[in-house]
């Protein structure tokens, strides 16, 4: 620890108002949550699934995309300070824990207190667990940082299965804290947090080098052949660009870009999607035979998990766009509408095989599969595109030289804007979950989402100042 450095990092990354309001939010959550829980306002099983689900998301994100987050300013100034690398990395690590704490308070906020009423000991265990979970997630990012791509997938896959086992009542998993096995769950969680921290700390001294190396590697990703945009109408050019910008873990990979024609690569992507859909269609009935409820949950789980992946993907907004090129070539409003439509179309195309699988599932007796089709083909894509829209309008960040050029300090206003971009996600999540109880709600949500997208793409309101705002923020 280097006190001055740590203080400097905290101050440059988080504004005071953000830190204070996070604490405030935690208090409000606790009061509200414990009131709700003691009065049995909610069916706690929703909290359980939400808790496990979001932990899976956080841990798998950490495993697949793990790195110590540094900004351009960090790279240019912080990493060149005459401070021992280990100290520097340690501080970056602790600051990252703080930023994960803030994120986690927002994500788990409502879930934490829902478990308060269980036992008196939970009042002590819960905060400890919360910190341990955050530390675990943060450590995984550091550990994953030095792993090869294959090992990352192994690690991520293991973590996902380990957490999923909690749903089956397996007690020796961090996920068990959400499923009523507080004691075992806490023990496992705390031990794994400690272990992973030790491992992460040992890796820390290498971490910055790896980061630099990774950036260099990312940059040297030359295609064997160029993709061609020749003879494409503007919309289709935008479509193909965006289709391949979608980076679903496994589904699309820039490296698989060997053939020169777009159509060939779309075939590859679709083949991947089809294979996954077939696996899903074969696996689910098998689970359903063993456990009826789990089978039904599986049907709901698919759109929910795709919603997760897609929403986190689209939260980046137009990080790779170049206003000086695209906005001077086409009317920004038209271009942005193309982007929305292109992404929507790309998602629907990718999800189509899953929809077909769902038709099959419906005919073998899964009633919920029908509403899952609507979720897959309308609600999830709409939600993703909505997230993209909001992220672009409220929080434009542009990626230059492989590092986000964003202001390093997160202020309260920015954090609130971040929360705003989560609204489509949460809205759709709730809609999909409710769909398992009331199918008609899916249709209503789908109509609302479609209407919203049309309204957003054709409304004039934000566009008068849109490019101006982006340009003023340095988005050129």
């Amino acid at each position, binding site marked *: 620890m280097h006190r001055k450095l740590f203080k400097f990092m905290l101050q440059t990354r988080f504004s005071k108002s953000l830190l204070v309001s996070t604490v405030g939010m935690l208090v409000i959550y606790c009061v509200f949550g414990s009131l709700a829980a003691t009065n049995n306002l909610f069916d706690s099983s929703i909290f359980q699934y939400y808790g496990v689900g979001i932990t899976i998301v956080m841990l798998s994100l950490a495993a697949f995309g793990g790195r110590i987050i540094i900004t351009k300013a960090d790279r240019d100034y912080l990493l060149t300070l005459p401070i021992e690398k280990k100290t520097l990395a340690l501080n970056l690590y602790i600051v990252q824990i703080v930023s994960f704490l803030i994120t986690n308070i927002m994500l788990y906020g409502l879930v934490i207190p829902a478990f308060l009423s269980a036992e008196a000991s939970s009042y002590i265990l819960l905060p400890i667990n919360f910190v341990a979970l955050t530390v675990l997630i943060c450590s995984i990012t550091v550990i994953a940082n030095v792993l090869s791509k294959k090992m990352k997938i192994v690690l991520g896959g293991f973590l996902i299965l380990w957490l999923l086992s909690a749903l089956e009542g397996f007690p020796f998993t961090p996920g068990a804290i959400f499923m009523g096995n507080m004691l075992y769950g806490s023990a496992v969680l705390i031990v794994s947090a400690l272990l992973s921290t030790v491992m992460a700390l040992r890796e820390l001294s290498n971490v910055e080098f790896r980061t630099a190396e990774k950036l260099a590697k*990312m*940059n*040297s*990703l*030359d*295609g*064997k*052949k*160029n*993709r*061609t*945009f*020749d*003879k*494409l*109408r*503007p919309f*289709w*050019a*935008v479509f193909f*660009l965006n289709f391949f*910008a979608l980076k679903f873990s496994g589904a699309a990979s*820039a490296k698989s870009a060997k053939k020169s024609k777009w159509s060939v690569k779309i075939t590859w992507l679709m083949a991947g999607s089809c294979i996954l859909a077939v696996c899903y269609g074969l696996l689910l009935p098998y689970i359903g035979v063993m456990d009826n409820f789990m089978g039904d949950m599986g049907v709901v789980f698919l759109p929910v998990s795709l919603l997760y992946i897609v929403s986190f993907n689209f939260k980046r907004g137009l990080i*790779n766009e*170049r*206003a*000086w*090129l*695209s*906005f*001077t*070539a*086409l*009317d920004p409003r038209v*271009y942005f509408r193309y982007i929305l439509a292109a992404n929507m179309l790309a998602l629907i195309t990718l999800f189509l095989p899953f929809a077909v699988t769902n038709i099959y599932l419906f005919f073998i007796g899964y009633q919920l599969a029908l509403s899952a089709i609507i979720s897959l083909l309308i609600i999830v894509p709409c939600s993703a595109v909505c997230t993209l829209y909001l992220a672009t309008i409220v929080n434009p960040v542009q*990626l*230059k*030289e*492989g590092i986000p050029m964003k202001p390093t300090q997160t202020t309260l206003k920015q954090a609130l804007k971040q929360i705003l971009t989560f609204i489509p996600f949460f809205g759709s999540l709730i809609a999909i979950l409710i769909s398992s109880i009331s199918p008609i709600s899916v249709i209503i949500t789908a109509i609302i989402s479609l209407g919203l997208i049309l309204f957003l793409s054709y409304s004039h309101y934000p566009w008068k*100042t849109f*490019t*101006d705002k982006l*340009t*003023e923020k340095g988005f*050129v």
Partner: protein
Amino acid sequence: MAEQELCDLEVRDLSRTFGNTYALKKVSFKILQGEKFALLGPNGAGKSTTLKLLTGLLKPTSGEIKIGGVDPSTKKARTIMGYLPEDASPYQMLSVRENLEYIGALREIENVKETTDHLLDFFDLNEYERSKVGKLSRGTTQKLALALAIIHKPKILLLDEPLNYLDIPTQEKVITRLNSLDVTVIVSTHIMSVASRLTKNVIMLARGVIRWEGSIDALRALGEAEEPIESIVARMMTSAP
């Protein structure tokens, strides 16, 4: 005659603020088809802001811009303008050729492939054709950015520090090639020699107002005998308005 007026560029009482500070204050000028102007001025003078306003990326706080008689945000203005920002950064995840073809497709130019081939030759970019932009050196990126700015054969070229990052042989090539294009040019720079190599006229900006406007020869005549033009410019920029 009508064809000529199509590509005139007129700015009247143009002001732009950022928060409370004026980046530009009541700037007016008119540039006729085929004329080449340098926007000359010290750091923070408002040169880049002027160009962003001309391209329509920024909106004026007050005042008026007419590109060939129409607003910069119109389709017509977009097709006749080509813009190179300072520190231009093309699409990082696309290769050099993909960048050119993508923008070619967006601009609906004919013969995207042939135009791209031609530009790759023109800027000696052939060996980088398949390289992702993120991997290029800063100078090579600049050459690509220049190519992207002229891919649709614009009638008006707005160039912000076009020679930045380029080595001297490349600078010479780019100067010759830019001069061979028959277009209206506005070059923003703070380097007098760049201005005099690429243009005939100067608009001198400082702190958001025009200090002087005229031909480079007239500028030279303002100084004493043998006085280098840089020193004349420096004197004019720092003197009170």
